């Protein structure tokens, strides 16, 4: 028996390459489209080319008799299937009946009208062309502001005003704050519709096993358990006989944090044809039928004293809902309102949201979900305020930050910020970028007629979503840890990572807690038949909430291991360290593996102790976490073409403790790319008739390698007190911090021309027009008292 403890390598905090990668880099991972089953059939969905139309008739005869076709289903046949749910309950929320196939009317381009099932995907596609639908085209409205105007076409005839919901929030005394202000700045700010564009489109394989009354549903989702509960309900199946598997998932960014018509539809098809069926979304469908993000028109007012002290913020927020509510649609703008004070010490807040139906695909969560919109608004307003007061944008921020000794800090919107040192990342970013020197250079360049801008954004965000009362479907997360008789460790997490790397970070946590090697640990997720109920991966929550559930499950097991170790060592006083249980008096030890075997062999059990080593924890977070940071962007503008070149991108993010810096950097980079996408290139544009004119990659411009700047990523570290890991979450930080920094930078560059605001995306043409026209005041002037 070994009597010395070996020092085992620790993993948390190290740049450890990911354990999920071998299958991904060798092309052997299994995404939904890779699944093949005997007897598999293929579905193609026929969709509406019109944004609003009545369906007069549908003729499926030719399609039904086409080669290979098994059936063609229409909305009248699937009427018994439950509606696609909105998961949000609020007073006066208008929820249109969202059937899985259109029945008598279509509400947006891409609305599913019929499904063709054939034994071969090519034949299914051929047959879809043979369906004849007679549409009576109706007037459509695709712009939320136009939809609110009197006389606008009604998206849903029963609600002629097109209002889907309203929401009001008031904190402090806004009227007093504005009455006492020396200066009020107002601005309309648009956060345009975006297409999440996960590289893997959605896809579903449904396999009905009649004898078992069992439906197996493989779907590319971030929330397999919620999909199971809801789809089972829609189809009238038993939840315990519905198995949802999220195999490898090729990106989500919120677009797969949903329950879609096609998930229930494929279940229905498989039950009908008694065969497995596969549907893979085309990219065109992905553009027109998978949720979009953002879609805000915001009217901000910010009130301040002449010294720059912010007194209050008002917001009227128009949220473009689209034709229906998807799972969380009405919740997203509420997250914006929660985030309204930003990281500033402002106790007077008023917000009014109006959600508006349009003949477009629904909006819902997209990377950041409500927080990028809010941060973009606040950070633009703070910059405009600084400009109005002729203050330096860094100085006005330092002046208004919530001080670091004020935590926990209660906001006017009802949140309690957990911990923070907001000045630290800004100071660090200013140092890194060489702020004073850059301002000098800027002054010199201006003399030469050149446009260079320095843009700052200091953001806070709401992560680790979230306490259950604040979420529609539970905000806890679960973990099971099983230590097998051989000492190998299996983790089952309710989180559902799809690129975030928890197969690695969770193994790091467990390896350090148990003192075992990373290779001894397997992390399983994404299968409702394997994993206890879970909530899923979104809202920068997987590590902060799911990792904490794992941490507590590990503590339970450690206690049990120590109990067994103490029994085997016949000691009362033992320690678990380095993979050994050590008798603190004698120094004698038992390796962890031997103890694991003993718990299953169960020849002898400690008092009141069951055999085996398995623990499950459902952890309810007491609060959100609130990461923060500062991004600084330096831009040079081509005065002839309006093109923007990003010279420097400095990101200093504070996401609390960092488990794996390699992965955290990757999250920041990817987040920044999506923020830059919104700031510079991306826009989902519908024309007046509701046609999505950026409906393919030919017109929807994405960040590409040659367009991206080098991101200088740095950190400060303020651990969160909310969870024992001290982590805050980092999945959305890059996106949230990015867009206002870019726009602030470009507005700063053009400020000598009197430019004070530009809406995204900052296309060369917009910039050129500002450079070319005399009247450059594109926004309303701030009303100065």
């Amino acid at each position, binding site marked *: 028996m070994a009597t010395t403890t070996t020092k085992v390598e620790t993993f948390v905090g190290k740049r450890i390459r990911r354990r999920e990668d071998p299958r991904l880099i060798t092309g052997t991972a299994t995404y939904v489209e890779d699944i093949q089953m005997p007897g598999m059939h293929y579905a193609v969905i026929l969709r509406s080319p*019109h944004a609003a139309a009545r369906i007069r008739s549908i003729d499926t005869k030719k399609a039904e008799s086409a080669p290979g076709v098994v059936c063609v289903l229409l909305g009248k046949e699937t009427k018994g299937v439950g509606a696609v749910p909105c998961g949000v309950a609020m007073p006066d929320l208008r929820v249109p009946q969202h059937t899985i196939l259109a029945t008598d009317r279509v509400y947006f*381009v891409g609305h599913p009208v019929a499904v063709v099932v054939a034994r071969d995907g090519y034949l299914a596609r051929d047959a879809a062309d043979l369906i004849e639908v007679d549409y009576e085209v109706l007037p459509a409205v695709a712009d939320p502001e136009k939809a609110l105007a009197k006389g606008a076409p009604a998206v849903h005839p029963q609600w002629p005003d097109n209002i889907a919901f309203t929401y009001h929030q008031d904190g402090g005394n806004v009227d007093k704050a504005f009455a006492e202000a020396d200066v009020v700045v107002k601005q309309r700010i648009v956060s345009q519709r975006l297409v999440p564009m996960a590289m893997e489109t959605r896809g579903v394989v449904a396999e009905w096993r009649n004898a078992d009354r069992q439906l197996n549903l493989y779907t590319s989702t971030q929330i397999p358990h919620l999909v199971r509960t809801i789809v089972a309900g829609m189809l009238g199946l038993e939840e315990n006989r519905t198995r949802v598997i999220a195999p490898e998932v090729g990106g989500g960014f919120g677009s797969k944090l949903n329950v879609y018509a096609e998930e229930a539809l494929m279940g229905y098809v498989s039950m009908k044809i008694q065969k497995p069926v596969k549907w893979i979304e085309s990219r065109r469908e992905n553009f027109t039928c998978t949720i979009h993000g953002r879609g805000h028109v915001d009217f901000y007012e910010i009130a301040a004293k002449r010294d720059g002290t912010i007194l209050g913020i008002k917001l009227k927020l128009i949220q473009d809902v689209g034709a229906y509510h998807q799972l969380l649609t009405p919740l997203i703008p509420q997250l914006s309102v929660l985030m309204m004070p930003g990281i500033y010490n402002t106790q007077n807040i008023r917000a009014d949201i109006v959600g508006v139906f349009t003949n477009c695909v629904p909006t819902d969560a997209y990377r950041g979900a409500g927080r990028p919109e809010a941060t973009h608004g606040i950070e633009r307003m703070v910059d405009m305020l600084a400009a109005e007061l002729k203050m330096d944008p860094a100085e006005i921020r330092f002046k208004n930050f919530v001080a670091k000794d004020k935590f926990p800090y209660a906001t006017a919107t009802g949140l309690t910020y957990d911990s923070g040192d907001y000045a630290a990342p800004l100071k660090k970013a200013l140092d890194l970028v060489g702020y004073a020197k850059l301002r000098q250079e800027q002054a010199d360049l201006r003399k030469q007629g050149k446009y260079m801008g320095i843009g700052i954004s200091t953001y806070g965000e709401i992560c680790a979503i979230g306490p259950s009362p604040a979420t529609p479907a539970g905000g806890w997360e679960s973990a099971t840890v099983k230590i097998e008789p051989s000492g190998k460790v299996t983790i089952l997490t309710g989180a559902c990572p799809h690129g975030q790397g928890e197969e690695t970070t969770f193994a790091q946590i467990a390896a350090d807690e148990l003192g075992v090697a990373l290779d001894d640990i397997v992390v399983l997720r994404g299968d409702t038949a394997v994993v206890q109920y879970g909530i899923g991966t979104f809202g920068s929550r997987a590590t902060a909430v799911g990792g904490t559930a794992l941490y507590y499950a590990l503590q339970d097991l450690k206690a049990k291991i120590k109990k067994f170790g103490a029994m085997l060592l016949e000691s009362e006083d033992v320690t678990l360290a380095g993979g050994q249980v050590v008798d603190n008096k004698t120094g004698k030890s038992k390796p962890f593996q031997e103890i694991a075997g003993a718990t299953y062999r169960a020849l002898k059990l400690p008092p009141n102790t069951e055999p085996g080593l398995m623990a499950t924890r459902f952890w309810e977070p007491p609060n959100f976490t609130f990461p923060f940071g500062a991004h600084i962007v330096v831009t040079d503008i081509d005065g002839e073409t309006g093109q923007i070149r990003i010279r420097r991108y400095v990101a200093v993010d504070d996401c609390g403790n960092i488990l794996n810096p390699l992965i955290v950097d990757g999250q920041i980079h990817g987040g920044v790319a999506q923020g830059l996408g919104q700031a510079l290139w991306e826009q989902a544009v519908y024309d007046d008739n509701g046609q999505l004119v950026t409906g*393919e990659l030919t017109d929807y411009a994405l960040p590409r390698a040659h367009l991206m700047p080098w991101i200088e990523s740095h950190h400060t570290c303020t651990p969160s007190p909310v969870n024992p890991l001290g982590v805050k979450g980092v999945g959305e930080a890059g996106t949230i911090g990015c867009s206002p920094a870019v726009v602030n930078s470009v507005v700063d560059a053009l400020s000598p021309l009197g430019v004070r605001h530009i809406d995204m995306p900052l296309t060369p043409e917009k910039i050129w027009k500002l450079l070319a026209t005399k009247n450059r005041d594109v926004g309303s002037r701030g009303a100065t008292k």
Partner: protein
Amino acid sequence: MKISGSYTLPVAPERAFQILQDPAILAQAMPGCESLEKIGPDEYRMKMKVLLAALSGQFEGKVRIADQAPPTSFRLIVEGSGRIGFLKGDGLLKLLPRYTDYTGPGAEARTSTEVSTLVSYEGDAQVGGTMAAVGQRLIDGTAKMMIKKFFDKLAGLARNLTW
């Protein structure tokens, strides 16, 4: 999408007005038009085959003429839909006499004193379906090209038919 432009036809406005509403002539002049069949007063059913580079599509639709004010203006509404999408054009055509030298097709047969007609058009074009999603950068140029083809053909026909 807004469309506008003008074209000079080598005939007088009265004749131009007639030609522009003659289904037989329209059928010949409209690019890709395979048939035009009267279904009501000033309303015609149309079959059309659009060939544009590799793009090809069969469209069925309607042509309607409205708000006639001979010989100065009328509205032309064209609608078509097919597998690859649908298109709709609604425009006001205004006809003005022109006494300046005409140099377009058919010019050789004319003298400079003859009156010709300046047809100016202004309206909306809509494109929907797959075409709308992938063809954004092509729609403007294509619409212009189709309109130009239409008038070129019409001018040629006018010349042959009129005198």
